């Protein structure tokens, strides 16, 4: 966790807004693992890793890797994986979808529907396409929008505390 403090050091503040934005988003994505319960069936084995997948370009640079380094969820070691195809993403627990084409996003979300994956994205229609968590910016702060109905259908239990800090659809 100490690494995160370092990320806030003055030298890094001088970086671009996007760098700072994704730095925060990386932490948020990591924090989701604390406020969401995944069904036990989402892990093949007790030592199976907790996988955070990225579909599309990786906008976090090293930040996400840094955020999860050496972290565990219960007995599960956290990993970040880069996917090129949605089929590879079947076994991950959090999937950040960084695609531009809305149709492609829609297809991707449709492909993982039915699986206990917390899908996260930035596009305005992300939730309408069946995504679970959307980042948006309000008064220069990064806010969350969550579709809890869908999350429940995916057997993901989202903490009421997380729901309280987010806009819930």
């Amino acid at each position: 966790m100490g690494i995160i403090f370092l990320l806030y050091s003055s030298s890094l503040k001088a970086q671009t807004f996007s760098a700072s934005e994704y730095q925060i988003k990386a932490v948020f994505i990591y924090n989701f693992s604390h406020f969401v319960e995944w069904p036990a069936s989402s892990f093949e084995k007790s030592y199976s890793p907790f996988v955070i997948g990225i579909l599309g370009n990786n906008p976090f640079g090293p930040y996400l890797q840094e955020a999860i380094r050496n972290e565990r969820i219960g007995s599960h070691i956290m990993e970040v994986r880069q996917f090129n195809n949605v089929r590879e993403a079947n076994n991950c627990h959090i999937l950040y979808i960084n695609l531009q084409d809305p149709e492609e996003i829609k297809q991707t979300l449709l492909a993982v529907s039915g699986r206990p994956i917390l899908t996260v994205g930035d596009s305005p229609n992300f939730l309408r396409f069946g995504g679970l968590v959307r980042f948006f910016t309000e008064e220069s702060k990064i806010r969350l929008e969550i579709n809890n109905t869908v999350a429940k259908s995916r057997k993901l239990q989202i903490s009421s505390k997380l729901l309280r800090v987010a806009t819930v659809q």
Partner: protein
Amino acid sequence: MKLKSLPIQRKLMSIILLTCAVVLFFMCTVYIILENEFYKESFKANMATLGAVIASNSSAALAFDNPEDARDVLGALDAEPNIILAALYRMDGTILATYPADTKASAFPTLTERNLYWYEGKFLHGIEPVMQRNEQLGKLYLQSDLQAMYAQLRRFAIIGMGLIAVALLIAYVLSHLLQGSIADPILNLEQTARSISEKGDYSVRAVKISNDELGALTDAFNQMLSQIQVQNEEILSFNQKLEQKVIERTSELQHQKEFVETIINSSVDLVAVFDTDMKYIMMNKKTMESYENNDTLLGKKLLEVFPQLENSDMHINLQKALQGEHVYLPRYRSKVIPRWFENYFIPLRDVDNNVYGVMTIGHDITSIVESAEKIEKVNAELLKSNRDLEQFAYVASHDLQEPLRKIQTFAQMLSDHTGDPEQAKIYQEKINQSSGRMKQLIQDMLNFSRISNSEEAFVPTDLNDVLENLIIDFELLLREKDAVINYPNLPVIPGIPLQLSQLFSNIINNSLKYTEKKPVITITCDTLTAEDVNTYHKLDKNIPYYKIQFQDNGIGFEPQYSEQIFAIFQRLHGKQSYSGTGIGLALCKKIVENHHGIIYAEGRLNEGATFTIIMPGAESKVI
């Protein structure tokens, strides 16, 4: 007031109230101390619980950096008025949200790594980690005002004081009501005892109030009173008997005392008792009568009353008797009264054989002593007379034989020379002379022996008359010798006039006889001073003396003969030189001694002689 001297009621009350007060105060104090600790712990626990809840609710706000939500969560603290400050810290130490919402960040401390709750001044501080699934997301800081807690404690203290006061009041009332059961029987007993000791009435009984130990005490007290009453009566009757006995004994003793006193007072002897300080403690009637001021003697010391007894036989023997010696003094001449006593000094001993006094018994033997002295005196006179007779016989045989032998011799010669009348006349003359001398000798011897046997009484004799008559008698002789007698006024002394005349006559005759030409006899007379009297041991110090001296200008004598000239028939010179029988001065000595005086002669050859006569001026009182 000390507890010891309080009346028992107040003592009981004091004990109860003091005990209650101490117990209640102790309990309240302990309670408040424990309550304080308990409150602190409970406050801490309350804050910890609150902190945990707030921290739990703030985890998402911290995780997703949402200050609005954080403020909402902290806003719930409104329900807890004790919490006056709160803040949520991010992991980097910056503040996400504060409570109250508009508080400046500077009001909050910089947090350390510790998570804890602590008291500081009037505040309780708390730091609670904000966790989500074992992941720390930040920290919650809480500050609570303790005024509420202290107010609560004050309330407890006031209530405690109130409770103590109420409890003491109840204790006071209860003890007031209940102490009677203990104090009343004791007070009753005390009152009874006091009344008995004041009035001495042992028939009073204490009232038994309870059946406890005090009841038993009352019973025992009453029983004791009964015993005292009985014993008192016994003692009284015994006392009466004793008094009766004492009266009888006293009267008996009085009788005995009077008997003994009668015996002692009937004694003709002087009986006195001295204590160890030699104080008179008793004297009988005879003793009283013998002393002057006898009523002041008792209780005084012997030497205090009669200082002249210091170191006298009386004093010394009294001391010996006080040492335990039984002293018998067969002859004691009192220095207090003119009596002789046969004295006994008898030590008086107590039961431990210690001498506590001395009884002196003085038996008056004055008449016996006087008789003995008379006998002694007569005896001495007889002895002297005997001696004189022996001497007289011896001398007479010598001196009387001499003229007798002359008479014989001349008678023989007269008968041998009858033819010569001239010669016969001479012899006759010689015989006449010798017979005349013999007659003179016999006459003088008669005079001498008469003096020895003189029984004549003394009368006051004027020595001037005596001397003047003598001068008339000696007139022819004085004129013949062309002699002069100088004399002063002489005193009147007790004596026998004829003997005193013989005395003066013999002395003057002696002086005239032993003076060759123009005799001058000078007579002087002085009274003897007390000091002078002391130089003559034969004289009595208590009577006056005159010293009469006859000084002549005659042939005198060798000083070694000053004694010898007074012996009878002693002559310093032959009859041829100076006529005389050798009796004159012996006669003088005898006369002076007869008058209790002294005579002595002083002289040097050819330088005259001085005859000194010392005669009493008054009759001697010596018996």
